[in-house]
């Protein structure tokens, strides 16, 4: 889908640390390194899938990009009408302009809508906040959007409590799109939904992308979902990117043991899919390290089946192994990992 290789958003070495406070005086005794130096680029009209397990910092990364948190360090560059805006340095006024172009679809449709407002008021909230259009114009926009996301305009006067999860998520999508953003962070938009409804929402998001030329940062813990929507995939583990590649490349030739493990966790419908090889599910030992207390060397070494002495001492940088493939593993060239 990425005909133009024009970047819309660049993230450089983004860090988001949360202080750990202790005692009566709230002394800072350490930091939870939720996002620890992440760099990535999202091109116009493409979907970048960000995958990783719960608590690895995916959502924090999404929120930090939109500056819902104040990142500790790094840069976020948003390309807007031939200008490059450094999102993290913008003042309140500049932030408004950027927010009008970057929106977010939230994870839990039951928590992300304001129950006290009608659907209409929820959907036009971004327009109201940015002072776009008059009331009738906003209502017209909302009607169109609702039709686009597959709801009826009678629904506008209702309150969110009268909708199902899937319908609510459609409302959430309508809200994110009401201001006609160029870039949307979709934070596990199908996480709380039934599988059948998941497919509907994913298809809707794809359709809207084609119609409106949106770029997505699509966050999910589910490799199956990511595989379906993403053009390129970034794999995140405990605050860091461990692998970053074009979708098919990452699926067929994973270069990081963690990616391999994620692939193996996707349930398959038939044995044929995995070829002649007998399929082995890779079970990772223990749980990921505490992002407030990282191990030395590679972040994954505590759970890696292939870890060597070097991995326990040296932290592998994210390096390109081909033009479309980067990985943070010392052994990338040596290992022969199985994809899908």
């Amino acid at each position, binding site marked *: 889908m990425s005909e133009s290789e024009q970047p819309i958003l660049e993230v450089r070495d983004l860090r988001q640390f949360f202080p750990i406070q202790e005692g009566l005086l709230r002394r800072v005794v350490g930091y939870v390194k939720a996002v620890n130096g992440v760099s990535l680029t999202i091109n116009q009209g493409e979907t970048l899938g960000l995958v990783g397990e719960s608590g690895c910092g995916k959502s924090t990364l999404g929120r930090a990009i939109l500056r819902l948190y104040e990142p500790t360090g790094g840069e976020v560059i948003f390309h807007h009408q031939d200008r490059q805006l450094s999102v993290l340095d913008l003042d309140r006024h500049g932030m*408004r302009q950027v927010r009008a172009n970057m*929106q977010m679809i*939230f994870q839990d449709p039951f928590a992300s*809508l304001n*129950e*006290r407002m009608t659907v209409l008021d929820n959907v036009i909230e*971004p327009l109201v906040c940015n002072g776009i259009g008059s009331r009738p114009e906003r209502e017209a926009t909302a009607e169109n959007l609702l039709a686009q996301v597959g709801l009826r305009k009678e629904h506008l006067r209702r*309150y969110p409590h009268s909708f199902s999860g899937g319908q609510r998520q459609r409302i959430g999508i309508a809200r994110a799109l009401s201001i006609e953003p160029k870039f949307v962070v979709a934070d596990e938009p199908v996480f709380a939904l039934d599988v059948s409804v998941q497919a509907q929402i994913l298809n809707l998001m794809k359709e809207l992308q084609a119609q409106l030329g949106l770029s997505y940062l699509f966050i999910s813990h589910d490799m199956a979902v990511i595989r379906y929507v993403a053009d390129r995939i970034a794999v995140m583990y405990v605050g860091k990117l461990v692998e970053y590649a074009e979708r098919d490349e990452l699926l067929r030739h994973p270069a990081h043991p963690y990616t391999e493990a994620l692939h193996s966790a996707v349930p398959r419908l038939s044995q044929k899919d995995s070829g002649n090889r007998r399929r082995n599910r890779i079970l990772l030992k223990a749980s990921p390290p505490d992002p407030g207390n990282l191990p030395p060397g590679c972040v994954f070494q505590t759970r890696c089946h292939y870890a060597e002495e070097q991995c326990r001492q040296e932290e592998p940088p994210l390096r390109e192994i081909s033009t479309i493939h980067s990985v943070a593993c010392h052994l990338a060239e040596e290992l022969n990992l199985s994809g899908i």
Partner: protein
Amino acid sequence: MSTASKPTFLTALSEHYIRWKRERSQRLQERLYYASQRELVWHAFKKHRLALVALIILTVLYTVSIGADFFAPFSPLNRFQNFNDAPPTRIHLITREGKLSWPFVYQTVRVRNTETFKYEYRENTTHRHIIRLLVKTEPYKLLKVIPIQHKFFGLSDRHVPLLLFGSDRLGRDVFSRILFAGRISLFIGFGGVMVTFILGSILGGISGYYGGLVDEIIQRIIEVLISVPNIPIWIALSAALPRDWGTIKIYFAITLILAVRGWTGLARVVRGRIISLREEEFALAAKAAGAGDWRIIFTHLLPAFISYLIVHITLAIPGMILGETALSFLGLGIKPPAVSWGTLLQDAQDITVLANYPWLLIPSLFVVLTILMFNFVGDGLRDAADPYASR
């Protein structure tokens, strides 16, 4: 033939009934879709019978106090000569002839008991004075605006005392005075609560949303305020009020004094809720939509728990009413000639009064009634407050 047709008729009827019920519940369901939170809360509140009754009683109390000019038979300062500390006038339904009659009273006269040297009140049964509704009096203005010349009830002869709750030391009608006193006592709670609400939600909101140093400062102020006992701080502040202030000035000053502590509790409730809600997705969504801090706090976060605030406030009003009563009782609040329930109770301070003129304690019943009713309404609201919880 009739035996055969009966069951079919009945089945048709029951089918009709079932369809009607289904359609009705569908209509209700549909209305629910469009129901705002306020409507949902009201729907749940109505199921709480006790709270509903309490709400009605409170409405009556407030109406009667606001319209005291109309509902009270006499002015609060109207004195009946020779009727000092008179007991409640007896209301009769049966005439001397043994016939049922519209309620009436007899003219009472004061006589000195020659043995005890106490005054006693005897009924002069020669003439019946019938209690009439909407009795005509000299013209006056209701609420200082509407010209009117009737009282809600009374006797046609205005010089015959009709003392439902007796009279006080100066011969004034206690019932009328209670109604007029309600104007101050019932509304001081509102004034205080209004200030409480504004201070509490703004300071609590800021404290919770921004956190950090602002939060620390506000929290320490609250801690200092609540560590000083209530009554002494009220007494100290009201003792500092200038003696020559008018009733209205004093009234507002007392309101502020009551609110000085009142807001602290609310501010803490608001702070706690804001802290838990600001990380919720709908708050982040508002931020992502480009809403400013002020808009997020006051149009997204506060409304999300406004029902809890209303409950908190409903339950805070009795405290304010009691505070005013206590201050006035101690002579530090509202001062005569203005009347409040507290100043009325001042007359009942010593034991001879309690022993000889117990009707002077009736104002306390109104205090108790009001406070109980507020608590019932608060209970009902608390149960109804979260209409989404049960769904």
